[in-house]
């Protein structure tokens, strides 16, 4: 039971992190039909900013906060430099653009910062564990769950109560009609990028708390997982992305915990097979609708 509870906390922590990345991806897809494969690099950028600020001697909290801002700004810069010129282009053109951005950033990280991981000293208060009687639980998973919940609640409030938030939901349903209302489409898209960058920054920080280092391709694996989560949830659906992320994280953690030793190497294969199983029953994803892709 204790083991199960521990694994459950781990599952929610990993799933929550995937969900944050997946929500950012889904958000951009829903407003502009772009699957941003450079989204994972936003995590990495946040990580490097955190690293350099700490090296410069900034207190951890301040450096962390600025690294989130940096991830959001980097997302905005991506939109302005790379995606805006292709605004109404074919979905494949935009997809390839995002691959290009991702590759360029990898090379820049490798050449100007270094291929080797940069260690980030996470304060002991975060890297430690809490003990309740005989029950040990890491602080990082608890922070991950808390951060994911707070981020999602803040996002939902933003989308429901602010003008820009409602405009983003409108744009996700019908972009052309939103423009027809006289609403500044560029502003809505910029806001979507800023928020997705912020979420990626939070996810990146959680990822780094777990691993204690940042390297040039840190964002690749989580992005891939988040992309699967987005597709499982139904392309473009934010609740779908959140559920997809939690589902994928749960699968991964529990397979690692309960699979017999001999099957462990096939963990990803098994979890992806289960995902494919979902598609046989929900071909458009759990929350997707047939004509979500215009």
């Amino acid at each position, binding site marked *: 039971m204790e083991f199960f509870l521990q694994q459950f906390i781990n599952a929610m922590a990993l799933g929550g992190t995937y969900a944050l990345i997946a929500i950012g991806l889904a958000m951009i897809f829903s407003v502009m039909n772009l699957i941003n494969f450079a989204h994972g690099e936003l995590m990495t950028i946040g990580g490097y900013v955190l690293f350099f600020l700490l090296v410069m001697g900034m207190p951890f909290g301040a450096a962390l906060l600025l690294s989130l801002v940096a991830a959001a700004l980097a997302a905005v810069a991506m939109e302005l430099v790379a995606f805006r010129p292709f605004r109404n282009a074919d979905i494949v053109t935009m997809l390839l653009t995002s691959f290009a951005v991702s590759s360029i950033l990898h090379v820049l990280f490798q050449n100007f910062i270094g291929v080797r991981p940069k260690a980030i000293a996470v304060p002991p208060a975060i890297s430690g564990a809490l003990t309740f009687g005989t029950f040990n639980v890491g602080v990082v998973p608890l922070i991950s769950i808390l951060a994911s919940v707070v981020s999602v609640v803040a996002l939902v409030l933003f989308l429901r109560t602010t*003008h820009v938030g*409602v405009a983003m939901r409108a744009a996700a*349903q019908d972009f052309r*009609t939103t*423009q027809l*209302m*006289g*609403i*500044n489409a560029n502003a809505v898209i910029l806001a979507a990028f800023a928020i997705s960058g912020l979420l990626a920054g939070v996810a990146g920080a959680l990822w780094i708390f777990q691993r204690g280092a940042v390297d040039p391709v840190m964002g690749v694996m989580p992005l891939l997982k988040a992309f699967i989560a987005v597709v499982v949830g139904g392309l473009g659906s934010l609740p779908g992305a959140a559920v997809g992320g939690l589902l994928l994280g749960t699968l991964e953690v529990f397979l690692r915990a309960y699979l017999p030793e001999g099957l462990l190497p096939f963990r990803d294969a098994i979890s992806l097979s289960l995902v494919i199983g979902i598609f046989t029953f929900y071909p458009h994803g759990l929350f997707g609708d047939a004509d979500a892709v215009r």
Partner: protein
Amino acid sequence: MNDLSGATKVDTAASGKPLLAIRNLNVHYGPVHAVRRVSIEVPEQSIVALLGANGAGKTSVLTACMGFLPSTAEGLTFAGRSIAGLRTEEIVRSGMTLTPEGRRVFPGLTVAENLAMGGGATAALRARAKVNRERVFDLFPRLRERLNQKAGSLSGGEQQMLAIGRSLMSEPKLLLLDEPSLGLAPNIVDQIFDLIVLLNKTGTTILLVEQNAEVSLDISHTAFVLRGGEVAASGSSAELRGRGNLDGLYFGI
């Protein structure tokens, strides 16, 4: 709706200077020349009907005016100012709004949120949104009852009311209405046309695209008939109505 049975137009209108003046507008879809040298004037305070068969280019004219479709024109002026090449949001801010064909309400947003989007173009509009919303509710009391309901759950007629109400939230001087009667029950259609007359009486100029020629000619001051992307006939609505053979005008037979 109070006593507005029997749509009658305002006779004092249709005398003003053109609020919207389109001179030799052309729209191309690839190799297809969909709108050819179309010139239309919409006098201030009037209702102008733009009629024609399916595919005659009516919607293209409206969307081109809104800067929503690449087009060329010798002149495209609204309220005395050239709007050629302006972005849609700038055109909406200057006081021209389109209620699109097929209503296009945001189905997943509530009625209140849909209205907020209609009045969301500028901070000044947003500040007056409350007042404007009350005006919309005076016209469409049903919307007040449905305020927190998702727009997608409304009936077709209610959605059309919402679509028009949403447009009114931007305080348009000129309202472009694209097929407001499409797919609605006859009694709802009557309501919508009564409402168009009422809107006009309260100072909104209207350019109305319709399939329903009879009623459109009843309530409009002037009318233009498009055929194959060109203006096939134009004149006062009464005169066009007097000619009788509208099918002939539509199809050139």
